[in-house]
């Protein structure tokens, strides 16, 4: 223990003797460790942000469409099979146990007149569950109710963009608008949602009861899609399984035949996005790791110079009874200390830089404990690896020649 303390003391002394040089040597490690942590923090930050964006779409979301039908061996493509009706929606709701919310979607589009303006937008017929599925809050007024849906009432909720276009200076709630010449009463305005991942304006929409849109605007008996929310994100695959079974029964698909409907989930998109950002993080991290390696070579360089410069000192130490091992550990301790100190400074630097990035730029960063540990132990390992050769060189010196060295 005493030996160890002396060793550390001696190493610190020798590092402090050449302050400037020690600092420059450590600089490689400081920058390396700092860069690794900052780069990975930026990568993690980006991935976190993308994950959050996707989560706001609803990761527990499943979308059901009718699928391809076959007629005499000829496939007619997606949507050609018999569509879903409101009755199907009710039946799914009744039989499935893994669902939290379910809503049909009836799509229509057309000219809307109101408040002295007109605007072309899409009209989505849904039921009350829809706002939970999309986690879409109402900004003003209220959403329509079950009774509105059952009664096919002509009420609607405006998206933020539509409200702005039709009623730029007044409150739209309570106003009457005409959708394709059918009068509707505005009972609410949705909160602004912004652009979707694909760049579409999600607020350019009018929501109305599905029944109203289907029977009074669009006509026909089939809905376009069914939106379903699983009871939780981790139950999404179970929900998908159950839905498949239920739908096959409802639609009377014979065992062995292909499904005539399709179920898509957002988890696939999440996975794709997060694997992209993982690659990004890995890329940034490995570029930074190269600088750490270069820093290590800097340490080796300086330690080699140091060994040559201190040949005489090594000779003295050997002549008064130092063993090879003692010289080896002394030089190794020095290089490990150099890189460890560099590593600690690098970590502090990384915190400072990420703080500045957070404060003054739009980049978001996430520093994880494990990356700090990895970067630090990598720095220490670099110290051992690149310190070993010079240290061995020092330990193997012949004491007589070392003493004679000028």
């Amino acid at each position, binding site marked *: 223990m*005493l*030996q160890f303390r*002396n060793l550390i003391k*001696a190493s610190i*002394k020798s590092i402090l*003797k050449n302050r400037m040089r020690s600092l420059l040597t450590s600089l490689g490690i400081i920058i390396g460790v700092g860069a690794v942590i900052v780069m990975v923090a930026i990568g993690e930050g980006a991935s976190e942000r993308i994950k959050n964006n996707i989560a706001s779409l609803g990761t527990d979301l499943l979308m059901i469409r009718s699928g391809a039908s076959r007629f005499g061996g000829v496939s007619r493509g997606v949507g050609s099979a018999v569509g879903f009706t409101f009755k199907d929606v009710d039946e799914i709701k009744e039989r499935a146990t893994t669902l939290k919310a379910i809503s049909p979607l009836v799509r229509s589009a057309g000219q809307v007149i109101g408040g002295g303006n007109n605007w072309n937008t899409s009209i989505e017929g849904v039921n009350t569950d829809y706002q939970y599925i999309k986690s879409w809050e109402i900004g003003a007024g209220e959403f329509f109710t079950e009774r509105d849906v059952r009664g096919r009432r002509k009420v609607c909720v405006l998206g933020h963009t539509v409200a702005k276009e039709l009623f730029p200076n007044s409150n739209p709630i309570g106003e009457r608008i005409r959708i394709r010449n059918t009068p509707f009463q505005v009972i609410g305005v949705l909160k602004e949602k912004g652009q979707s991942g694909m760049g579409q304006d999600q607020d350019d929409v009018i929501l109305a009861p599905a029944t109203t849109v289907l029977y009074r605007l669009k006509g026909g008996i089939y809905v376009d899609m069914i939106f379903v929310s699983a009871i939780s994100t981790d139950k999404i695959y179970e929900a998908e399984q159950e839905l498949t079974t239920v739908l096959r029964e409802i639609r009377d698909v014979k065992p062995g035949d292909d499904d005539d409907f399709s179920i898509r989930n957002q988890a696939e998109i999440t996975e794709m996005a997060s694997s992209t950002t993982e690659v990004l993080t890995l890329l940034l991290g490995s570029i930074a790791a190269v600088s750490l390696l270069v820093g290590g070579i800097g340490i080796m360089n300086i330690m080699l110079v140091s060994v040559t410069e201190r040949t*005489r*000192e090594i*000779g*003295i*130490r*050997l*002549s*008064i*009874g*130092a*063993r*090879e*091992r*003692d010289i080896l550990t002394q030089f190794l301790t020095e290089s490990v200390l150099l890189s460890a100190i560099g590593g600690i400074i690098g970590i502090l630097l990384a915190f400072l830089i990420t703080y500045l990035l957070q404060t003054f730029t739009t980049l978001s960063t996430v520093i994880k404990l494990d990356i700090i540990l990895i970067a630090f132990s990598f720095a220490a390992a670099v110290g051992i690896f690149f310190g070993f050769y010079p240290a061995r060189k020092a330990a193997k010196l012949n*004491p*007589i020649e070392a*003493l004679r060295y000028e």
Partner: protein
Amino acid sequence: MNKIIETKQLTKTFYLGDIAVHALRGIDLSVEPGELVAIMGSSGSGKSTLMNLLGCLDQPTSGDYFLDGINVNSLKKDEYAEIRNHKIGFVFQGFNLLPRTSALENVELPLFYDRTLRIKNPKQAAIDALARVSLAERMDHEPNQLSGGEQQRVAIARALVNQPAIILADEPTGNLDSRTSVDVISVFQELNDQGITIVMVTHEPDLIPYAKRVIEMRDGIIRNDYLVEKRRRAKEDLAEMATLQEEV
């Protein structure tokens, strides 16, 4: 009485390419406790090679070497280091102190490598050793703040601190002027009076009267080995020099 040093037909041959250089050609030497031996010889006589062998810095080509009763030839590398640490105190021509390190820390250095921890309080031992060479009050000075004579005294203190069986001095006065040389020799004489065995290598005949025994080497063998009859005390000579200087 046990001999401190005993060598039997010690030889050392160096090879420079194909040419064999016989630096030592059969040395039989024994040194007993309390001796103050001066090994004389011109350069190339093999005295430095002998010194390296005696100091366990190098191994002989053939022959046996017993140091304080231990057959050194049979030892491994680490044991060599331990022998150097426990049994030998070195004094070099160039002082060989660690730069930018205080006198005290320089003296403490051998104890740093002593794994047996024989000496309980290294710092106190170092202070005591410095006191024996009358440098206790300068223990915080670094080598570049000390004169040549003082640096050599620090080196002697470092050689003393681990209580060695013998002090080996390789041209200890080589870098010093004549007055300082006598000063350093007076330190050796004092230590020798206290019972410490000293072997020094020198090519300065002026120093012969201060030794107890002289060994003359030439061409790798011992040519002459005699006891000094008219011994001089370095301390008295120093006092004489001082008075002479005052008269001038």
